[in-house]
């Protein structure tokens, strides 16, 4: 009995030693769901925090709590660095700020174009910060994006960001841009980072012009739309070295994703080869991972051949032409390949001649040609990339023709 008592008391004493230092209540914490970073007005940076108000998002049934109030609080501050800004918040946020549930990290375009890495990359060391956080570049000021971000279809801001950044799997025009990827791509020789572009809905409508335009020519901040929530994600920012070098529209982002192997699904509208002014709509999936063949020529210049195997189904044939017949399906396939080829040439032109940045991450394939890291570094892929000989090839196969065997023609 004495032994039992002694051990009990000892256990109690041991339990007192650690002292609960890490103990923190949920309701004494301010959960930051998004962080915005801009060039500062009164200091180096303007840091914007979007904080979820749990009381209003999930009110306690017992009453008491507000309910109906705002689910979000957005606060901005001028600070020399992000982490010092977090400490700063104690002055006016009564709960301790916690970044462990931060979903996105938005950098204003102005800041990104001048100095991207210096302010963001140090976060990799910070334990509260998850490497799965989405890194986005605002087409404008991040502060504005966060002020306008208010979930319409959901209650919780966490879900809003999860859904918006997770849309990369459902379309071609949003790149997969979590912190880990951007961090690795930006820091590695042989690849440029690709961060999703976010923006606030355009302020005024464009000039009237009801001609056909592919959806992929747009990007966040210019999407022709009305209604819905104020923010939008489309296109990508290319980050090379320590700063952002330019933006990609939806189609170019799609090509980059196909080469990188993160493409999952898209709906492509291509001109009907036999009926000008009419269009075919197809759904496109990857068939196999892209095959990238890199050879280093005798002159030391790389020659890259990219083959992208795709497959898909016919969704709509406006002209009613019987393309779905087995002997004519290839006409659809060629049309899709041709259209994709046009996008690819535009993207390649941007990569090699406009930005000089390998946002296709072809360097990762080229790297395999080198026996040692030193050899690879000496090769200086980033310098040779603009002059490299790069060819794209698409191989599209129609697998399904939808649930109509033939279009019925109303003549």
């Amino acid at each position, binding site marked *: 009995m004495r032994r039992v008592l002694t051990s009990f008391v000892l256990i109690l004493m041991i339990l007192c030693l650690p002292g609960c230092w890490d103990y*923190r209540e949920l309701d004494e914490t301010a959960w930051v769901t998004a962080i915005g970073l801009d060039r500062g007005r009164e200091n180096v940076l303007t840091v914007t925090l979007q904080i979820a108000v749990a009381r209003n998002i999930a009110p306690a049934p017992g009453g008491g709590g507000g309910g109906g109030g705002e689910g979000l609080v957005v606060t901005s501050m001028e600070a020399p660095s992000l982490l010092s800004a977090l400490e700063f918040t104690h002055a006016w946020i009564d709960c301790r700020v916690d970044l462990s549930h931060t979903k996105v990290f938005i950098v204003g375009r102005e800041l990104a174009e001048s100095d991207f890495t210096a302010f963001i990359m140090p976060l990799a060391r910070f334990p509260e910060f998850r490497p799965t956080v989405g890194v986005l570049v605002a087409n404008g000021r991040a502060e504005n994006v966060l002020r306008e971000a208010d979930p319409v279809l959901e209650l919780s801001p966490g879900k809003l960001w999860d859904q918006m950044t997770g849309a990369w799997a459902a379309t071609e025009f949003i790149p997969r841009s979590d912190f880990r990827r951007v961090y690795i791509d930006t820091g590695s020789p042989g690849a440029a980072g690709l961060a999703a572009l976010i923006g606030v809905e355009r302020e005024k409508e464009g000039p009237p012009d009801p001609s056909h335009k592919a959806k992929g020519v747009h990007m966040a901040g210019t999407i022709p739309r009305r209604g819905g929530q104020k923010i939008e994600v489309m296109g990508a920012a290319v980050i090379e070295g320590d700063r952002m070098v330019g933006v990609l529209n939806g189609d170019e982002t799609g090509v980059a994703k196909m080469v990188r192997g993160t493409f999952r699904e898209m709906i492509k509208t291509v001109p009907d080869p036999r009926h000008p002014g009419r269009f075919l709509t197809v759904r496109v999936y990857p068939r196999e991972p892209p095959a990238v063949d890199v050879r280093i020529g005798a002159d030391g210049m790389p020659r890259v051949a990219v083959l992208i195997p795709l497959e898909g189904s016919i969704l709509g044939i406006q002209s009613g032409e019987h393309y779905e017949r087995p002997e004519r399906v290839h006409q659809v396939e060629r049309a899709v390949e041709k259209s994709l080829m046009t996008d690819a040439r535009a993207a390649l032109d941007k990569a090699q001649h406009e930005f000089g940045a390998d946002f296709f991450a072809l360097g990762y394939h080229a790297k395999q040609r080198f026996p040692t890291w030193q050899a690879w570094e000496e090769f200086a892929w980033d310098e040779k990339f603009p002059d490299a000989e790069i060819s794209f090839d698409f191989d599209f196969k129609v697998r399904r023709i939808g649930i109509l065997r033939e279009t019925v023609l109303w003549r």
Partner: protein
Amino acid sequence: MLKTLNRLLVFREPAVPRYEFEAGREDRPSAPAGGRAPSGAKKPAGGAPGDTAAFEKKRAEGRRLDAILKGNRPLSTSLDENERLLKEIFREPGNKDIVFRPFSIGTERPRRALLVFFDGPVNTDRQNLSILQPLMLFAGLRPDRIPAERGEPGPAGQEAREELAKRIREALLPGNEVSPAGTVREVVEDVLNANTALLVDGLDTALLIETKAWATRGVGTPQVEAVIRGPQEAFTEQIRINITLIRKTLRRSSLVTEFLPVGRISPLQCAVMYLDDVANPALVAEVKRRLKSVGADYVNESGILEQFIEDMPGAPAPQTLATERPDRVVAGLVEGRVAIMVDGNPWALIVPATFFSLMQAAEDAYNRWPPGTFTRLIRYVGLGLALLLPGAYVAIITHHPEFIPTDLLLAFAGAREPVPFPTAVEVLLMEAAFELIREAGVRIPGTVGTTLGIVGALILGQAAVAANIVSPILIIIVALTALGSFTIPNYPFSNTIRMYRFFYIALGTVLGLFGILVGLFVHLALLARMTSFGVPFLAPVAPVTRSAPDYLWRGPAWEQEERPDYLDPLRRRRQPRISRGWTQRRTGKGDDRPDGR
């Protein structure tokens, strides 16, 4: 309230009751009226001299009578002397239960005789018809073998006395169980067992006649270990009935029942049952050795006996498997375990018990193996919930909020917003409330039981949340924990688990998941160190031994081919490799029938 008032008004109880006897009080008014003074009052300081004398006299008398019983004093040939001694032992002038029935045996020259028995537990019809009637009326019917009356004492009379005893036993008592006894102690013990002792003048042998008729409950359905499929019989308070229930299911000549009396003040029969050709003899010997050595004062429940014979009294789990189901006992016996039963209570102990046997329910085996395995796994999930859920909840909420999906986290945080207590306090409060309700549910009289449900539902449910005492999520946690603890089939084990979860709450509060893992590690180490009658508690997992697929995973009945290796039974194999003989094509060679015998 009303009742109390009524009693006070009508009966006018004295405000301060006067006690005739108070231990250790200096000015005791009179000698102790009856009963023993507590041991603490051996020598009351300054007590009245007559008082102490009476106390000492009573003590001396008790010791003398105990010595007679222990000393195996033989019976006297004198009926009067035997009667006097027995009356003294049974405290006759005060004790109204004991009956001394003098009569005379209707032989040619009537002989004085005496029946000694307890009024109540004996079958009076049997006494009348098969003891008194033949002895009083028919003793003279067969004159040929009536022994002649020769000289009373001395060696010559000895032969005649034996002749008479034999004649009474063999010809005059039609009862089914009659045995001779030569000592006072045997007579007393048998009379205490509700039999009747027949003493005849001139004989130094008493005849003990079976007349037991204890009041018992009938065989009922299991109250604690209920099953849907399987036998619906449970043990009762009568050991003979319990053994009968086992024999009814397990008809095997090698099933041995040994009786060992346990307890000093009132030795109760403990039955040790085992299959002589299956159970390891060392195990049987160990069980008997432990039972024989128990010097307990009074053991009336197997729960008390369990505490006397378990390997490790401080260990964090019971080391015997208590069951009220005869079929579970039989299953244990067939595996090579030993069953211990105590007279007068419906719980049998199966030893050795392992962790996995404590987590099994009888029904696992009766269901087909997929649902059998599924329900068993559910039970392990329940065990985990009961032990760890509240602790893990506190740990994750307060130390590792990054574990929780953001939406859930915001829901938790929002629900907690109006609650004024820290999470740990909130959890302790609710768990304590639940324990109160559970304990009250056991203790509450059945007639007012329904109120408990209302009170419990109100406290644990609506009101606590509405009053912002706890967050609604916590209600779910407490409910899941409670459900989990009720899935543990062994009630003592379930109680233990429920107790240990408070340790985990403390560890989770202080150290987070790290603390819980440390606790789990220590807990597992303690369990691994435990043994039950020498068998490691976590066998066959730690140490790894061979076993049929019947611990975590419940294999089909025909895969249960071997008895557990950790029991080291005399017969290892239960069934042949192919026990479903019909699945094989007949070869004509030999019979592949299962070797059941």
